[in-house]
């Protein structure tokens, strides 16, 4: 895939891709939280390796290597308890890049070729690719049907409404169930239009 062949995806396509992914790899079915590091290693045969100082010295949290056999993760993300949710989302985002963009650097053999392809990507294209990967990652970690059902269940029997209901009652609960950050759960909540459905 040369940069000119980059494909962007609609929300519906990304949701569908997540459904296929979960149906195929999340075993037993509907297992929540999705054990993303296990799926990556077991189903894709991609190693997850720690990289000490990846963030500090290279400004990167994690990345999928071009050869698609390894995801390098900053050691703190891997080891620190408080980073678990970011670790999980980061891995989901990297596997999303694998699914969506693995051919981007196909045939690249040298650093010069790598830089050339990289330079041909505009800021807008990179942003869109990141956005697609993040959307797919969110849909993998927070399957739409279960997410919506859990949100509705949690909303029952509370006197709170609107933003209070969402921010105090629903989002922290969803973040715990799906083992993601509250910010990530909030994005997903909005993507699925639950704000207008649950009040």
């Amino acid at each position, binding site marked *: 895939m040369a940069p000119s062949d980059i494909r962007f995806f609609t929300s519906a396509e990304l949701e569908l891709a997540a459904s296929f992914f979960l149906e195929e790899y999340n075993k037993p079915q509907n297992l929540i939280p999705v*054990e*993303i*590091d*296990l799926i990556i*290693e*077991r189903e894709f045969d991609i*190693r*997850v*390796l*720690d*990289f*000490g*100082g990846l*963030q500090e*010295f*290279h*400004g*990167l*949290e*994690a*990345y*999928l*290597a*071009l*050869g*698609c*056999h*390894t995801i*390098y993760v900053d*050691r703190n993300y*891997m*080891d620190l308890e408080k980073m*678990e949710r970011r*670790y999980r989302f*980061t891995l989901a*985002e*990297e596997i999303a*890049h*694998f699914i969506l*963009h*693995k051919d*981007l*650097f196909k045939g*690249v*053999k*040298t*650093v010069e*070729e*790598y*830089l050339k392809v*990289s*330079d041909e*990507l505009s*800021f807008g294209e*990179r*942003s869109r*690719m*990141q956005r697609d*990967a993040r959307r797919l990652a969110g849909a993998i970690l927070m399957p739409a049907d279960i997410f919506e059902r859990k949100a509705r269940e949690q909303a029952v029997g509370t006197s709170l409404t609107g933003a209070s209901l969402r921010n105090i009652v629903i989002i922290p609960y969803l973040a715990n169930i799906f083992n993601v950050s509250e910010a990530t759960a909030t994005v997903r909540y909005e993507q699925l239009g639950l704000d207008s459905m649950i009040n």
Partner: protein
Amino acid sequence: MSKETFGSILRRLRLGHGFGLRRFAKLIGVLPSNLCHFESGKLNPPQNRETLERIAKVLNLKDGSPEWNKFFDLAAKPGEVAVDVKEYLCEQDMVAELPLMARAIKDKKMTKAEIGKLIKDLKRI
């Protein structure tokens, strides 16, 4: 067929039992990065009997079974980098180790100098 090492058997059994890296590390009481290093052969296997037994139990190995014995025998032979990793370190073009799409802290492209630095550090892993 590649020769089995402590790291390769540990990884095979872990994945076979459906344990993700981080969950398994927590169960056996080691840091996930150390588990990575045990599996890749970068760190020698734990030599503490208690730790090895804890790992064996989580992996449901029966005391005295051939698998149990193999697991403990391999743990006693430290210092071998897992064959798959060794081959991979020797043969893979470093370009294959560069980021497909880096999850960068700052949303910017990497420069040639930055890539050079990354390759240098990758060689140390």
